[in-house]
């Protein structure tokens, strides 16, 4: 257990410098009050100056945490004196296309839900810059815990339209086997070690994370935040055991609404005290479903909370993909420094879309407000302007790309919708690592009923039909 000593380096910078003592025994760092000292040496506040002035700290007196920005809303560099973002043209074009692809898919799928072709959908309009820009700063081995509005992260990390559509239509190609609500994507790579056959390691066995880099999305809000801290702790232990591999971090996404949950506070505190290499990315989009931020908190956004937990924190313009990407790269570096530590990024944006297909946001906000944001500032339009300024994009390219994307989405949509559903046994499997005796009996009983009354049950939509129960 290392002990952190926090030094406030000035209110304006809103950064905490940290010095670490790593005692073999906690009590070797114990402190005592010295006579005549001008500062407090209580265990809970080791560097606080005494004062005879009684004054309460007022949040309203502190300057708001500034918002980091690289590119303005006209797609121009804000600071012309600094070097251009350290990204190749090809990379930026990929980002743009990924953002566009998510937005094209969102329009199609939102309509599809309205037509009753799937039960639920959530779009990311206005937040594509945050997800694509930050995911672009991750390595393939980094682990992601997402909330639900992070299609851009999946897209940037190689999730294909077929992967998206298979999950949305819960067909037999869905890695989640049709068990989760639409948009609760997950991504996995083959596991190194199958827990059912080899869960019991030996002292010499190398600690190897199962190669699941994108954890399946979980509906209850904010549960992913402490889990991300735990996964980061696991990565830290594994990377310590194997110093030859490149160290990894966990990226954890959530909205400002979820930051009201107790789990958020618990997670930040435990990540800080356990020195977990995790980057928390808060998408502050202005609304917790219908509740505007004004009614969600009285402090300075979510960023101010990070400082309170002794976590390196930055606020960025979420509509500026370069700012998000640069902040994430630096956050990743910080998270791996000093033996690992958490970092908080608050990315500001505006939720242009309804919360989900179950929401009509014009019941609580003016249509003109939304239209204004769509037109005035939007991560996709901003990057398009930047690309056009660089001579990398034009109206013609925009039109053909959008058309191609729409066609590709509709093709995968049709294919996925026609694809068979997961086999019947998938309703029973995976409750436990191994199918239980009772479940086998239930499967046999179901099979008996289906075989007894073949005219009552149409098994054609299910993969392998009746054999799917074997």
């Amino acid at each position, binding site marked *: 257990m290392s002990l952190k000593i926090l030094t406030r380096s000035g209110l304006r910078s809103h950064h905490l410098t940290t010095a670490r003592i790593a005692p073999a025994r906690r009590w070797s760092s114990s402190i005592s009050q010295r006579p005549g000292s001008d500062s407090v040496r209580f265990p809970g506040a080791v560097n606080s100056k005494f004062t005879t002035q009684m004054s309460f700290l007022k949040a309203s007196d502190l300057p708001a945490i500034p918002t980091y920005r690289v590119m303005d809303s006209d797609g121009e560099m804000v600071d012309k004196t600094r070097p251009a973002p350290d990204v190749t043209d090809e990379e930026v074009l990929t980002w743009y296309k990924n953002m566009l692809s998510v937005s094209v898919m969102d329009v199609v799928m939102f309509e599809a839900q309205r037509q009753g072709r799937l039960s639920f959908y959530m779009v990311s309009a206005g937040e594509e810059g945050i997800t694509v820009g930050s995911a672009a700063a991750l390595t393939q081995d980094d682990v992601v815990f997402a909330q639900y509005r992070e299609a851009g992260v999946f897209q940037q990390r190689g999730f294909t339209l077929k992967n998206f559509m298979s999950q949305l239509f819960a067909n037999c190609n869905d890695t*989640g086997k049709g068990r989760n609500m639409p948009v609760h994507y997950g991504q996995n790579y083959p596991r190194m070690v199958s827990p059912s056959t080899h869960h019991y390691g*030996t002292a010499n066995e190398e600690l190897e994370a199962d190669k699941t880099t994108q954890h399946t999305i979980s509906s209850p809000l904010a549960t992913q935040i402490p889990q991300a801290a735990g996964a980061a*702790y696991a990565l830290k232990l594994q990377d310590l055991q194997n110093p030859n591999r490149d160290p990894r971090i966990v990226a954890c996404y959530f909205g400002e609404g979820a930051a009201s949950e107790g789990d958020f506070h*618990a997670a930040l505190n435990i990540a800080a005290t356990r020195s977990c290499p995790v980057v928390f990315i808060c998408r502050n989009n202005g609304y917790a479903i219908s509740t505007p931020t004004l009614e969600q908190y009285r402090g300075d956004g979510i960023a101010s909370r990070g400082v309170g937990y002794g976590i390196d924190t930055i606020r960025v313009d979420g509509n500026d993909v370069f700012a998000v990407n640069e902040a994430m790269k630096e956050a990743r570096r910080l998270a791996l420094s000093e033996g690992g530590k958490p970092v908080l990024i608050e990315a500001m944006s505006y939720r242009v879309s309804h919360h989900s297909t179950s929401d009509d946001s014009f019941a609580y906000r003016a249509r003109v407000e939304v239209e204004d944001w769509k037109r005035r500032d939007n991560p996709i339009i901003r990057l398009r302007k930047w690309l056009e300024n660089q001579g990398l994009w034009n109206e013609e390219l925009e039109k053909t790309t959008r058309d191609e994307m729409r066609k590709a989405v509709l093709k995968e949509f049709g294919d996925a919708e026609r694809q068979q559903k997961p086999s019947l046994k998938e309703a029973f499997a995976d409750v436990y690592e191994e199918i*239980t005796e009772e479940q086998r009996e239930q499967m046999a009983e179901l099979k008996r009923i289906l075989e007894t009354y073949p005219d009552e049950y149409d098994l054609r939509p299910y993969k392998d039909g009746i054999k799917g129960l074997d």
Partner: protein
Amino acid sequence: MAAPRLFRPTARLFSSRLASTALRSNLRQTACAPSIYRRGYATENGTKEVTVRDALNEALAEELELNQKTFILGEEVAQYNGAYKVTRGLLDRFGPKRVIDTPITEAGFCGLAVGAALAGLHPICEFMTFNFAMQAIDQIINSAAKTHYMSGGIQPCNVTFRGPNGFAAGVAAQHSQDYSAWYGSIPGLKVVSPWSSEDAKGLLKAAIRDPNPVVVLENELMYGQSFPMSEAAQKNDFVLPIGKAKIERPGKDLTIVSLSRCVGQSLTAAAELKQKYGVDAEVINLRSVKPLDVETIIASLKKTGRIMVVESGYPMFGVSSEILALSMEYGFDYLTAPAVRVTGAEVPTPYAAGLEGMAFPQEDTIVTQAAKLLRL
């Protein structure tokens, strides 16, 4: 209906009360006399007297030693050696990266444990008591129990949740609840509840090795109790199968099914039934709440024709309700008398010792109810 839905005056309070005052938890700042940590002595046939606490400690130490993927975390588990000294000596032996003191935030450290399990480690999450785990129950039920299924079987969740469960001595309603039925009702979880030292060691080791999330419901009042431990159980490869009950006392006249501390009470009651009425009661120690060993229970019921379940949970929707329902489903034709449950009273547990005693089954409650069931 034998369930004490109301207070049941008892002739005498349970005998362990005096002994248990030494273990009395002062909530967060538990004072536990270090002297209770003692090794047992070996006998000629190789068995050894070991306390439940030491058996649990041994299980943890062995698994931490054998499997680098395991680590234990919780409040006070490291420097303080555990609120109940179950993790005694582990910090010194395995270091602060694998024996971790956490801030007082159940949602935080339980979430951390679940996350580490999803990332491939095998964490052991200690709750100071399962009463406090309610602050983290969403992580246990919505995340730990369901993620393997909802991810399509791609995400492992080899996590063990452990800690004392049920009532202790004089800690009132918010620290006295039995969660067997809560966790026992969740698909995706396994739930074990040890009584003796062999149970404690074998089940905890099995829980840590099991690839699924397992809830280990210990009992504070049992920590200091000694039991003989066989030579086999003293070895580091001793594991009990999850889902198998143990017949602690064979009998032919009445089946008493019980779990955790109530197993001991049932055995005492069975001895009294024999002595007073010449009745042979068979006592089944469930060991595992989920999966439940229905086979053993029904086989015993078929033999005796009468069944009684004794537990310290609440009467409604409980472990005993479930076993009674199963008895009806699978053994109705063999029952010669209505099945009966003896449970805790339907009341938030009172603090006052006398009232507390009346809120839970006592040995004479079991004897009286058994006599009534047998029409003695």
